[in-house]
């Protein structure tokens, strides 16, 4: 035990002597929360829209004004023909074109049926879907009003009405959804990267040889190496929770103790991953790349930025192996829904088993000699 304390003493001296360390611990959480929380919104505003109005009647004018008044659209230009807008589309100045064909009004009054054309920049498929969806909503509203005018029947008040109530995030604020995930990202990066790099650094500068010839035991070395980063990550989690509460007013409905307790286990998992990476690499550069390789996959799969439900089934299956996904799930459930222990038992169980496996594997792989 005394040996571990000496090791810890040495680690902390080194950590706080490193001039980059305090900024990493304090600034990175703040910046990540402040920036990343705004990056993954699932709504789109200010779509740049252009009209090609070949009808030029009262009806077409009315339709256009509906778009003009929507907060989702900015009218970029009006043209007589699509070809005039192609260049703007290529330059990304226009994202969507609404084509109102000639005789639009005539068709509508005579045959009670008319066509519209919508051209959407679909490079980003999900954004395109959203934009088209907004446009359809407006056209649908326009349509309903026309039918009401023409027939005198108010179809708005007939048929089935669905009234959704959005539980746990009534205002559909995506930041509420993002912040718990960002917190997970934060502690995962701190845990895996700092610990892994720290051990590889000893290899790189050769100090590990000098340590290995001392009677220090494997478990002492590992405990002495990992505990400081466990502590830093725990600190950052608390720090992040405070920022979430104060800056973003994110509700923390569930038990903070439950969050901290499971985070403590989750960090063993992450540190185990860092240790494992350090056992199979020789330089900090290799460790960095390997850690990124794992984390980019874990993060993208985890549903932090995009809904897991929108992914193909086989990538959803991969999430069974994704430790980050479990913890993000857990954090969202406990923070936003106030889930208690019994509601998140499955996540906790997965995290715990995973932590034991990863740490076990890493310790087994760690050799004091070649």
């Amino acid at each position, binding site marked *: 035990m*005394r040996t571990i304390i*000496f090791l810890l003493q040495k680690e902390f001296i080194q950590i706080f002597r490193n001039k980059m360390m305090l900024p990493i611990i304090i600034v990175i959480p703040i910046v990540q929360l402040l920036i990343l929380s705004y990056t993954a919104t699932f709504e789109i505003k200010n779509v740049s829209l252009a009209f090609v109005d070949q009808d030029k009647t009262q009806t077409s004018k009315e339709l256009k004004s509906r778009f003009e008044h929507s907060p989702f659209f900015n009218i970029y230009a009006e043209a007589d023909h699509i070809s005039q807008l192609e260049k703007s589309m290529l330059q990304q100045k226009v994202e969507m074109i609404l084509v109102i064909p000639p005789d639009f009004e005539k068709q509508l009054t005579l045959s009670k049926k008319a066509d519209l054309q919508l051209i959407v920049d679909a490079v980003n498929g999900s954004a395109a879907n959203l934009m088209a969806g907004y446009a359809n909503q407006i056209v649908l509203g326009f349509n309903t009003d026309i039918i009401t005018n023409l027939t005198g029947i108010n179809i708005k008040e007939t048929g089935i009405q669905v009234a959704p109530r959005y539980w746990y995030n009534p205002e559909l604020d995506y930041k509420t959804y993002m912040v718990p995930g960002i917190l997970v990202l934060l502690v995962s990066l701190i845990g895996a990267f700092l610990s892994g790099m720290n051990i590889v650094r000893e290899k790189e500068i050769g100090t590990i040889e000098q340590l290995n*010839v001392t009677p220090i035991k494997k478990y002492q070395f590992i405990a002495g190496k990992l505990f400081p980063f466990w502590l830093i990550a725990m600190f950052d989690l608390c720090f992040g929770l405070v920022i979430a509460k104060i800056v973003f007013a994110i509700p923390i409905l569930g038990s903070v103790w439950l969050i901290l307790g499971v985070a403590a286990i989750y960090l063993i998992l992450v540190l185990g991953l860092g240790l494992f990476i350090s056992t199979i690499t020789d330089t900090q550069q290799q460790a960095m790349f390997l850690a990124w390789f794992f984390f980019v996959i874990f993060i993208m799969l985890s549903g932090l930025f995009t809904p897991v439900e929108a992914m193909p089934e086989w990538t959803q299956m991969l999430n069974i192996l994704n430790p980050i996904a479990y913890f993000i799930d857990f954090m969202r459930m406990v923070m936003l829904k106030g889930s208690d222990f019994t509601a998140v038992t499955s996540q906790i169980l997965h995290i715990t088993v995973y932590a034991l496996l990863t740490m076990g594997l890493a310790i087994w792989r760690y050799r004091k000699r070649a």
Partner: protein
Amino acid sequence: MKTAIEIENLAHNYGLVKALKPLNMSIESGTLFGFIGPDGAGKTTLFRILTSLLLPTQGKAKVLGLDVVNDFRKLRPLLGYMPGRFSLYQDLTVEENLNFFAKLFKTSIEENYHLIKDIYDQIAPFKNRLAGKLSGGMKQKLALSCALIHKPDLLFLDEPTTGVDVVSRAEFWEMLRKLKNHGITIVVSTPYMDEAALCDKVALIQKGKILQTDSPQNIMENFSKPLFSVKSINRNSLSKDIETFGKTDSFYWFGDSIHWIGSDDKDADLLRIYLQQKKHEDLEIEKINASIEDCFMDLMKGNHE
């Protein structure tokens, strides 16, 4: 005399590279033993095996009566190891480094201060300086202090004088002499052949093979080939002309003269005539006694062929 190191049929390969060929030898307690050999000879590999950092591909080694593979836990507290590359924490101070290693060995600086006093006194004025900011010689003294702080029975020093200036090198060997008097067995490796003369016993190692093990005196006395020192004013063409002389066994520059080995003493007279024909003036050719370096040059040449 007791045996400190016992090596039996020990060998190590890195993949297909035979870093250390099967080796048998023993080193007595209380000696200052030197492994002399060029870079890449296998010195570090051997040291890493003997300090239990590397598992040998084959064979056995006992250090202080303990097997380096099976008894490494008991062995490590008894060893001091100073790797060839400076391996202390550059971001810790001199004192913090020393303290840290003392504590890992469950001792304190005070307890074994007598052992490192001579060395540590020289760096003590800089004890609050970061190790990374020390000069080369200072780093080396700190590394030696750290390797000694737990009073090891056996000290391994891997190329301690590489990259150190001549004065510091001499000082360093003086320190090793004193440590030996404390009863510590010292095993040191070096690429500098002149340092061999400072050891009690040396082993010449090249390409993973030990060429000879003996005391420097014996090695020099047993050298039987005719060795001559050749000097000429015309240095530039001297080596070229000696090379074309048919009776040359081997030759090499040694300071400002060439050391030349023929097949017997009479060849020297033929060499003189030959060089005079080649218009070498102020020719000095004299028979000399082999230095340790001459012996090694000859042994290494034999190993090459």
